[in-house]
């Protein structure tokens, strides 16, 4: 019968020539199972030492290395076969309960993976860079543990029946924050290692979470899943964070702005005058000498349906000033000419195309009073409206 018991365990703390420090823990009770704990980074350090490649350690990781490509290939070289060889080597040295006769009869030790940590360490140029990363990422990714995000990271379909707590945890140890995301028994931890490196680490506690067996020969499949999860987390963070940057930029343009002591009005997206200004600017982006007040005034006036005399020089100066303070254009030094900045060109292109090609025709298709040929968008809106009306009518009847 199966039960539980308090059993003596014997730990052997050893240092291997190829693997560095590891421990082997034997249970003294039948069937004498044991546990083997090792660290892949310690293995890599031993290999670097043996091959005479200079490196600087960062706790159990690597801070710098003379040959980064060789370092990565050594990491990739830690295989199931090498781990098995380590076990056999130390079983031959240490006492264990199974005799030669037992082993010949097939009672041999085998290995399975209880827990594996798969890490991606990115050493940053300055500690401040890492701090910025965490400040931004943690602020913007508090929802990263939600099912929709988790299925993106782990490339798994998450349904109502998927077990586990879908949560994001930010744990601060002293002043160092770390981000934790869970999927079933698997966890991703992201932290600022020793204030020098960004460590993204997937810990697989149960290989069955990914429908993979626990035996050691499944190591390549588990590696693939863990490393992919690390990369996907970083991708999601990049995308979500950069969307926030774009949102801020959009709001910045659409709000009045103060640059040092100079205040300027907003460039509102829906304002026809602003749309005309964007379009007028796009006439000049490739001119090597830029454009003058008069050049822009001619294009701008015609887009507003006025003559160039209907728009004064002072009115154009006002528009040029606000474009300059919003960073859309810059003045060419020692001249009265301007040129579009890279940011200005992209913003002008995006705002004019979105307004002219998506919003205007899209609204025409959606609104019932505007004559428009039958299209799927109009049809869907009509259907939605019908459904809402029938729902409201049904509610009145019930009342």
């Amino acid at each position, binding site marked *: *019968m*199966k039960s*539980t*018991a*308090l*059993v003596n365990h*014997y*730990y052997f*703390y050893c*240092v291997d020539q190829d693997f560095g*420090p590891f*421990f082997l823990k034997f*249970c*003294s*009770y*039948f*069937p*004498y199972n*044991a*546990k*083997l*704990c*090792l*660290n*892949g980074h310690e293995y*890599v350090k031993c290999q670097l030492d043996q091959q005479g490649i200079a490196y600087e350690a960062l706790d*159990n*990781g690597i801070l*710098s290395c003379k040959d*980064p490509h060789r*370092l*990565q290939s050594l*990491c990739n070289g830690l295989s199931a076969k090498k781990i098995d060889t380590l*076990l056999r080597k130390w079983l031959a040295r240490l*006492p264990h309960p*199974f005799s030669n006769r037992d082993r010949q*009869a*097939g*009672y041999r030790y*085998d290995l*399975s*993976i*209880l*827990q*594996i*940590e*798969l*890490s*991606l*360490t990115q*050493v*940053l*140029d300055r500690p401040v*860079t890492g701090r910025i*990363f965490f400040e*931004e990422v943690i602020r913007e990714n508090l929802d990263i543990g939600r099912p929709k995000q988790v299925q993106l990271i782990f490339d798994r379909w998450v349904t109502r029946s998927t077990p586990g707590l879908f949560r994001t945890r930010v744990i601060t140890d002293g002043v160092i924050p770390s981000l934790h995301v869970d999927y079933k028994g698997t966890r991703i931890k992201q932290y600022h290692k020793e204030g020098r490196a*960004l460590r993204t680490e997937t810990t697989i506690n149960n290989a069955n979470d990914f429908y993979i067996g626990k035996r050691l020969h499944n190591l390549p499949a588990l590696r693939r899943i863990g490393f992919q999860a690390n990369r996907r987390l970083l991708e999601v963070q*990049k995308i979500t*964070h*950069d969307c926030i940057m774009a949102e801020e930029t959009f709001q910045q343009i659409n709000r009045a702005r103060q640059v040092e002591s100079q205040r300027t009005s907003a460039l509102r997206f829906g304002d026809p005058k602003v749309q005309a200004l964007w379009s007028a600017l796009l006439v000049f982006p490739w001119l090597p000498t830029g454009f003058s007040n008069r050049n822009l005034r001619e294009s701008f006036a015609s887009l507003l349906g006025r003559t160039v005399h209907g728009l004064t020089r002072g009115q154009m100066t006002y528009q040029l000033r606000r474009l300059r303070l919003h960073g859309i254009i810059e003045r060419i030094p020692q001249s009265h000419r301007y040129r579009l900045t890279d940011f200005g060109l992209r913003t002008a292109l995006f705002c004019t195309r979105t307004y002219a090609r998506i919003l205007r025709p899209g609204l025409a298709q959606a609104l019932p009073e505007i004559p428009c040929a039958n299209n799927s968008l109009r049809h869907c809106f009509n259907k939605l409206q019908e459904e809402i009306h029938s729902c409201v009518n049904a509610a009145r009847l019930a009342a």
Partner: protein
Amino acid sequence: MRVAQSVAEILSKHVVLEVEGIDRMYLNVYVPRLQIVEGVLGFLKKHLGHKVASTRLVEPITRAFVAAIEKFVQDNAIPMICFEKGQRKKERHDSAPAFRRRKGLSSSARRRRSALSTEPRDAAIPGPARTTPGS
């Protein structure tokens, strides 16, 4: 030097070394044939040649194993640290210099784990005897 503005910029321009690899691995070392009851019966009856299946029968193996560990430790002059009930590794870590180095060190501790045991089906009928685990 300009401070980075976005996550994408940090990852593309401010990473000086990138290493992807296995960190900690915790592995189970086990004998596959002894993980199920039928396998244990086969080990006791067919392999060891006992007529009845009792965990008492593996007691000599346990004793020999523990004795072998003690002899190995003594022969190789390896420091051995025994844990008292409720004592944690971290406490010894702080007190014992050998534990800090953790080279050529052995220690023993009691942990709760699942175990196979046998018990008589009926007190009146002689059967496999109950054993005390971890003896």
